[in-house]
């Protein structure tokens, strides 16, 4: 991962040499350069724990953060008031966590969220768990009641480190005003180093209010934390021989390819050795889906050809993926003939779900470079590539869209894809709309797909779009559109964040694929529960277009095919938040589908095959 420690070191060094800038920093915006100059030159000395917390964030190069105020976090916010940090006041803490998470995905460095103690912290929990499942870099700072009240069931007290221990990479209860800045620096470094993940620092009010003149040191991980960057040479050699000797190889790219900034190395490897590529859902964009080697996404709602290739491969080269059950289906029938080469920076992912014949622990880009150096020739896979091509023609993703039937949601996804550039960013909620957004948008660039994969958090799309928009702007991608695909159910969970998007005039488009159902549940009820629509049928939804107008956003409602193009154009061009309520076919289902625990090769193309 991007060396946060390096960044922090640069910040520390620049105290002596204010002009010093690392490559990483020079890539950021003008605003950050100004901030860096000011913080390095005439920085007011730290006097409180809270100022030390904020100084630590500045040292780590943080420019933007998301949060909600409250009693126990007030000292920290008071220090933010004087800092160069841009703080986005969210409507709900869950959204602050999702926005920080999305910021981390798009910017490639930890997003930061703040909340108060008690309900503030517990509201963050969903977003932290989401970041943890998807290994997204994020730092959460929570207020806590003063140390002397801890354990007394004080007002707004929650055992935050206890609650979040299982869903963070690491968390810390700050014990002293002198140390608290270093605690935050450590949390920042841990979130970004090795396999990324969310970290949390719980900040008792007496610690943040307490006096200290100690400047926090550079952000470095604790000395008990180690990362292995390179795989052992002999293991790499063995893996290279296996790949060369295979006849039916498949590269499986996971989210680690993008998070490890290994996209270039991964693409080159695939192209040089002409190995077909399947991606997991978090890896959408790691390999261009319009390339002839791309088989697109595999797994439960992956393409038929990706799942055929996964099922029949004799050599599966998995990079930065954790073999989630939504990808593997039943483990007994997953790539059952394949020797598995597994590259991952987290040793615990090796042979956790699928036994790795060739475990290669290390950084994705580094190990792929090692593997490339160890390879002498391409595998003989001409016939296999032809077979994959044949599967592509046998299992096309062309859905039926007769104009005498209600609007198909897939059509809306394709229309937005056509109306935006390749660097447009897609965020989603969770459900059918998320799958259509994954299937029918052609992803070609990394960090353009922002979704809730592992945790499956409905309501993720809009707050994520806010974080993604801010990150894109910070990365100099002001012209990239940000499109949030949401379902009606998903949108209802976090739509209050429209208030933030309007207040900050963020250029995001929310495309609601509205079928008045919790659609994925309805689809499963039809397939597995005799069509009994228990608690999945809204029957009535608010008028989302009018609701958007009430927030001050642009609102458009669409029912007909011939209204789609104009609405798409108008919403994309609108400079500010726009919501388009697409009334789509409530009966449309997501296919292909591998039922939970099923055989990937036996994916269903229609309900009667389930």
């Amino acid at each position, binding site marked *: 991962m991007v060396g946060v420690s390096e960044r922090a070191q640069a910040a520390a060094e620049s105290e002596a040499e204010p002009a010093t800038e690392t490559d990483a920093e020079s890539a950021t915006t003008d605003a950050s350069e100004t901030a860096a100059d000011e913080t390095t030159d005439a920085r007011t000395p730290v006097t409180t724990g809270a100022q030390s917390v904020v100084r630590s964030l500045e040292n780590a190069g943080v420019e933007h953060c998301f949060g909600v105020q409250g009693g126990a976090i007030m000292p920290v916010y008071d220090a933010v008031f004087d800092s160069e940090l841009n703080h986005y006041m969210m409507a709900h803490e869950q959204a602050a966590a999702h926005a920080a998470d999305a910021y981390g995905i798009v910017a490639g460095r930890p997003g930061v969220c703040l909340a108060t103690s008690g309900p503030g912290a517990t509201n963050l929990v969903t977003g932290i768990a989401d970041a943890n499942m998807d290994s997204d870099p994020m730092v959460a700072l929570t207020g806590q009641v003063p140390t002397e009240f801890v354990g007394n069931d004080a007002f707004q007290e929650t055992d935050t480190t206890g609650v979040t221990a299982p869903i963070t990479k690491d968390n810390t209860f700050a014990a002293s005003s002198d140390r608290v800045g270093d605690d935050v620096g450590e949390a920042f470094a841990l979130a970004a180093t090795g396999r990324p993940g969310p970290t949390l620092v719980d900040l008792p009010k007496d610690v943040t209010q307490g006096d200290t003149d100690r400047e926090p040191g550079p952000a470095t991980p604790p000395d008990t934390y180690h990362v292995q960057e390179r795989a052992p040479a002999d293991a790499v050699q063995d893996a290279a021989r296996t790949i060369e000797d295979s006849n039916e190889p498949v590269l499986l790219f996971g989210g680690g390819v993008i998070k490890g900034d290994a996209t270039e190395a991964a693409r080159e490897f695939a192209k040089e050795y002409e190995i077909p590529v399947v991606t997991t859902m978090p890896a959408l964009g790691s390999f261009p889906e319009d390339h002839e080697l791309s088989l697109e996404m595999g797994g439960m709602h992956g393409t038929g050809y990706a799942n055929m290739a996964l099922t029949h491969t004799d050599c599966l080269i998995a990079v930065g993926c954790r073999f989630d059950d939504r990808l593997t289906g039943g483990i007994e029938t997953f790539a059952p003939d394949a020797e598995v080469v597994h590259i991952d920076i987290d040793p615990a992912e090796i042979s956790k779900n699928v036994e790795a014949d060739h475990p290669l*622990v290390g950084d994705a880009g580094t190990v792929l470079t090692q593997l490339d150096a160890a390879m002498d020739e391409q595998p003989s896979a001409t016939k296999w590539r032809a077979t994959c091509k044949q599967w592509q023609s046998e299992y096309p993703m062309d859905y039926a869209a007769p104009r005498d039937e209600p609007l198909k949601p897939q059509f809306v996804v394709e229309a937005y894809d056509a109306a935006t550039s390749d660097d447009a960013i897609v965020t989603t909620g969770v459900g059918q709309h998320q799958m259509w957004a994954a299937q029918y948008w052609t992803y070609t660039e990394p960090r353009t797909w922002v979704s809730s994969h592992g945790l499956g958090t409905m309501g993720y799309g809009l707050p994520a779009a806010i974080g993604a928009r801010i990150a894109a702007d910070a990365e100099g991608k002001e012209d990239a559109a940000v499109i949030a695909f949401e379902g009606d159910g998903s949108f209802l969970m976090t739509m209050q964040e429209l208030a933030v998007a309007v207040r900050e005039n963020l250029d995001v488009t929310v495309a609601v694929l509205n079928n008045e159902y919790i659609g994925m549940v309805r689809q499963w009820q039809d397939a597995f529960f005799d069509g009994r629509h228990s608690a999945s049928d809204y029957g009535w939804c608010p008028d989302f277009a009018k609701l958007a107008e009430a927030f001050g956003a642009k609102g458009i409602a669409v029912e007909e095919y011939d209204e789609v193009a104009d609405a798409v154009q108008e919403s994309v061009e609108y400079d500010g938040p726009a919501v388009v309520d697409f009334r789509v076919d409530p009966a449309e289902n997501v296919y292909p589908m591998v039922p939970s625990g099923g055989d990937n090769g036996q994916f269903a193309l229609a309900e009667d095959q389930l």
Partner: protein
Amino acid sequence: MSDESTDDAQRAAGESTDDAQRAAGESTDSTQRTGDESHDETVAPRARADHRREGLEGPTPGERPVPRGKRNSQGIRIDPEVEAEREPRRAVISVLVAHEPGVLSEVSSLFSRRQFNIESLTVGATNDPERARITVVVEEPDPGIDQVEKQLRKLVPVISVRELDPDAVRRELAIIKVDAADPSEVAAVADMYDARTVDASRETVTVEVTGSRQKIEGAIDTLGQFGVREITRTGTAAQARGTDSTAGTPPAETTGQTEAAAAATDGGEPADAAGASDDGEPKDATVDDATTEQA
């Protein structure tokens, strides 16, 4: 029918939709739509017209080729004709941790949330005041034991993790309170197990026994003839024999290396990173061995 659908789908690729006409007269009132579909229980849940094409086209599951192989539930490729699962075994794992608040709960919650079968867990201070040692006895098949070790290594306060050899020194302690109807008999039996009498009253005798698990179970079984009132047992404390270190090699100074390695990756300079991971880093070094062995 399918030709028409294909055409439609191709048109859907973002081209103009002016030519697309919905059939007049079909209701587009969404409330009515969903009402039709779900509130009338006598009708099929999705009242779709017969001509509507469901899903996607392509060979059905039965028409597809089937792979030869199979994996077992642990994700290991197996011969489908032969047996499958690996049997669980008992392993003693010694964990050196930073002596700080919350470590024990982090370790114990790891075992419960990942459903590792844990037989006992003990924790105590070491000769270094900043470190504590946790000894865990787990019962898992081999892939599970590997997972236990790897997941433990991921916890930030964990310094080293090692499975001890079968010949390691292992001791448990039990305090057993029995009826004192025949105190001399109790003393005689206790003596057979090198147990000491630590408390006595008119009605009870309490003995303390230390040793291997088997010995303690033997003692409990034999003392059972006098009527056991209460038993308190510790878990296993264990230590490697001779010069073999229980914690494995003590960790070298590696913080700088982590940074160097991170920086090297960032700048795409694998040569530097090679130096960084050549030595030290016991957490990962042991993992390497374990994973290579598995292969």
